[in-house]
C-alpha cells in the first residue's frame, strides 16, 4: 500500500473576522513525526482545530489533502473516518456517557454496519491500552472527561488515539499538565503507534516531550505560519536558547497573531 500523505497548502484561517493562520504549508507522510513548536498565541491550536473542522474557525483560503481527498469538504465525522485524529488541548466533558460506551461508539462509527467490534474484543483491547497508559480500570466506567484532572484528560486523549488507530494524528499540547512519569507513559503510547501507516503532528511549546518522542522534522510557528524548519536538533537549540534568536534572524518583533505585527 502506498504511504499516506497529509498535505496542507496555503491555508488561511479566520476567527470572528481576524486572520489567525496565513499561508500555512506543510506535508506529512505516513511514518513521519513532525513537531510544531512556538510560543503561546502563535496559532498552533487554531491550525489543529481548523484541520479537524472546528465550527468556530473559517477557512478562507487553501486546501488540506489526505491522500488526494479534500479534507475541507468533509464534515467533522467524515474527517475522522478518513483517518484524521485530533488530541485536543481542552477536551470537552460529557456527563452521563461512560468512557467505554463512547469509545465503543467511536470504534463502531468507523466500521461498516453489521461489522461492529465484539464486546469481548473491545474490552480486551481497551484493557490492554489502559494498562499500557497506566490508567486505572475504573476509567472505563467514568463519564467522559467529567471531573478528570488535566493529566487524566491528556491520558484519555492518548487512549482514544491508541483505540482508534488513525492514519494521522495531531496532538495539541498533549504534554501540558503531565509530570515526568506521565510524560514517559504517554510518549511510550505514541511511540508504539509509530509505523509507516501512521503520521503525527505534535504541537508543543516545550521541548521536553521531544526528548521521548524523537521528531523527524521540527517547525517553528510564529504569526500564524511556519517561519523555520529543521531536524530534531532545532528543538534542542530552542530548548537551550529560546525563540529570540529566530525572531532576530527574521526581524519579527511580535510573534503572536492578531496583535501588532511586522508587515513583510
Amino acid at each position, binding site marked *: 500500500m502506498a504511504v499516506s500523505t497529509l498535505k496542507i497548502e496555503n491555508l488561511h484561517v479566520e476567527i470572528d473576522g481576524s486572520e489567525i493562520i496565513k499561508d500555512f504549508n506543510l506535508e506529512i507522510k505516513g511514518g513521519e513525526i513532525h513537531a510544531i513548536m512556538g510560543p503561546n498565541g502563535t496559532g498552533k491550536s487554531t491550525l489543529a482545530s481548523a484541520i479537524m473542522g472546528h*465550527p468556530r474557525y473559517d477557512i478562507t483560503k487553501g486546501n488540506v489533502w489526505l491522500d488526494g481527498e479534500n479534507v475541507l469538504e468533509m464534515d467533522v465525522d467524515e474527517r475522522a473516518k478518513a483517518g484524521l485524529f485530533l488530541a485536543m488541548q481542552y477536551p*470537552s466533558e460529557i456527563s452521563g456517557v461512560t468512557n467505554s460506551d463512547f469509545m465503543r461508539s*467511536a470504534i463502531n462509527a468507523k466500521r461498516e454496519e453489521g461489522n461492529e467490534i465484539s464486546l469481548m474484543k473491545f474490552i480486551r483491547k481497551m484493557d490492554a491500552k489502559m494498562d499500557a497508559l497506566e490508567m486505572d480500570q475504573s476509567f472505563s466506567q467514568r463519564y467522559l472527561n467529567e471531573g478528570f484532572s488535566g493529566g487524566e484528560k491528556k491520558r484519555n486523549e492518548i487512549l482514544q488515539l491508541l483505540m482508534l488507530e488513525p492514519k494521522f494524528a495531531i496532538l495539541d499540547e498533549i504534554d501540558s499538565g503531565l509530570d515526568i512519569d506521565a510524560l514517559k507513559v504517554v510518549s511510550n503510547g505514541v511511540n508504539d503507534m509509530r509505523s509507516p501507516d501512521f503520521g503525527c503532528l505534535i504541537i508543543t511549546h516545550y521541548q521536553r516531550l521531544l526528548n521521548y518522542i524523537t521528531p523527524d522534522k521540527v517547525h517553528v510557528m510564529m504569526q500564524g505560519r511556519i517561519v523555520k524548519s529543521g531536524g530534531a536538533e532545532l528543538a534542542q537549540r530552542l530548548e537551550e536558547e529560546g525563540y529570540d534568536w529566530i525572531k532576530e534572524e527574521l526581524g519579527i518583533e511580535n510573534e503572536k497573531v492578531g496583535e501588532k505585527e511586522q508587515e513583510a
Partner: protein
Amino acid sequence: MATETKWTFDEEYVKDFSKRRGEPEWLMEERLTAIRLADKLELPKPEKTNIKTWNFTEFKHETENSGMVNQVEELPEDVQRLIDSSGGEQNLIVFRDGKPLYRSVHERLQQQGVVFVDIETAAKEHSELLKQYFMGKAVKVDEHRLNALHVALLNGGVFVYVPKNVQVEAPLQTVYLQEDPEAALFNHVIIAAEDNSQLTYLENYISSEKEKGSVANIVSEVYAGQGAKVSYGGVDHFEKGITTYVSRRGYVEKDGRIEWALGQMNEGNTVSDNTTVLYGDGSSADAKSVTIGRGEQSQNFVTHINHYGKHSDGQILTHGVMKDKASSIFNGVSKIEKGASKSNGEQTERVLMLSERARGDANPILLIDEDDVTAGHAASVGRIDPMQMFYLMSRGLSETEAQRLIIHGFLAPVVNQLPIKAVKERLTEVIERKVY
C-alpha cells in the same frame, strides 16, 4: 367537545362506589368529605401554566373487572417487557385500569411482616394500618380540587408497609396499565417505612390508547420513619390523550432518607408536584427527575424540598429535553424554615432545547428563613454545546449519534438509578423514540 353536563359524580355516586368496593366506614367518610370539598375548591394554579382548559372532568370512572391472570406470559406484551426475567426474587403487582391483574410476591415479605397489596385489599384487610397513613402528614385533601377529586374517586393504587428494622432487599415493583381508552385512573400509592427499615419501590405508568381523552390523577405518600431509607423510582409514560396530575409526596423523620428517581415521559399535558418534607433532624432527600417534552405538549414540574430538621440535606436535580413546540416549566424550591440550622439545600435545573419553537423555563428558588445554612443552585436553558458535538464528531460519531449520546447522558441521572434492568432498558427506548 368538553361538556359540563356529563358530570355525574356526586355524594350518592361516591357512597355507592365505596359500598360496592366493600370499604370501611372511615374511607367512605373520607370520600364523602372530599366530594363535598371538590365542589368548593378550585383547580391548582401551577406557576406560568394555565390548566383551566385541560380536561380533568371528562372520563369514565369504572370499568369491567376482567379478573386476574396467573402467569407473566398472560400479561399484555407491553407489561411483560417491564419485568425482569432473570429469575431473581420477584415482588410485583400489575394493575389494569386500576384493578389488580397479576400479583407475585415472595413469601419472605409476609414472614417479615411486610405488606404489599393493592389498595382495595388493603382497605379490607389492613384497614387500621391504612387509616393511619392515608392522606396523612404529607398531603391534604383540601389543597385544591384535584386532591379532593382524587380522594372522592380513588379507584386504584397500592399500599406498602415495612415494619421497624426490616430491610427489603429486592425491589417492590408495580405496573399500572391503562387499557380502556376512556378509563380514568385515580391512583393512590402509600409507602410507609417504619423506623430503621429500608426498601426500594419502582412504578411504571403506561397506557395503550393514544388519542382518546382521559385523566390520570395520582397521589403518592411516602413516609420514612427514623433512620428509614426509601428509594422511589417512577416512570410515567401515558399516551397523548391522557391529562395527568401527579403529586408525589414524602415526609422524612430523624435521620431518614427518601431518594426519588422520576422519569416523566408522558406524551400528554402534565402537572407534576414532587414535595418532600424533611421533618426530622439529619433527614435527607435526593429528588431527581428527567423529562422530554415534544409535540404541543404543555407540562409543569415542581420539585419542592422543605427543611424543618436541623442538619437536613436536600438535593434537587431536574433535567429536561424540549423539542417541537412543547412547553415546560421547571420550578425547584428549596425552603429552609427557621430553626433548621446547619441544613443544606442544593438544586440543579437544566433544560436542553432541541427546537426554536419549544419553550423551557427553569426557575430555581431558594426560600431561606434560617441564617446558619448552606444552599446553592445552578440553572441553565440552552442548546447542545457545539464544543461537545465537535469533540464527539472528531472521533467519527455522526451528528445524530453524537447528539444521541449527549441526550442519553443528560438523562442518565435517573435512568441509572432505577433498580430493575428491564425498566431501565424500556426507559432508554422511550427516550430514544421521543427524541428521534
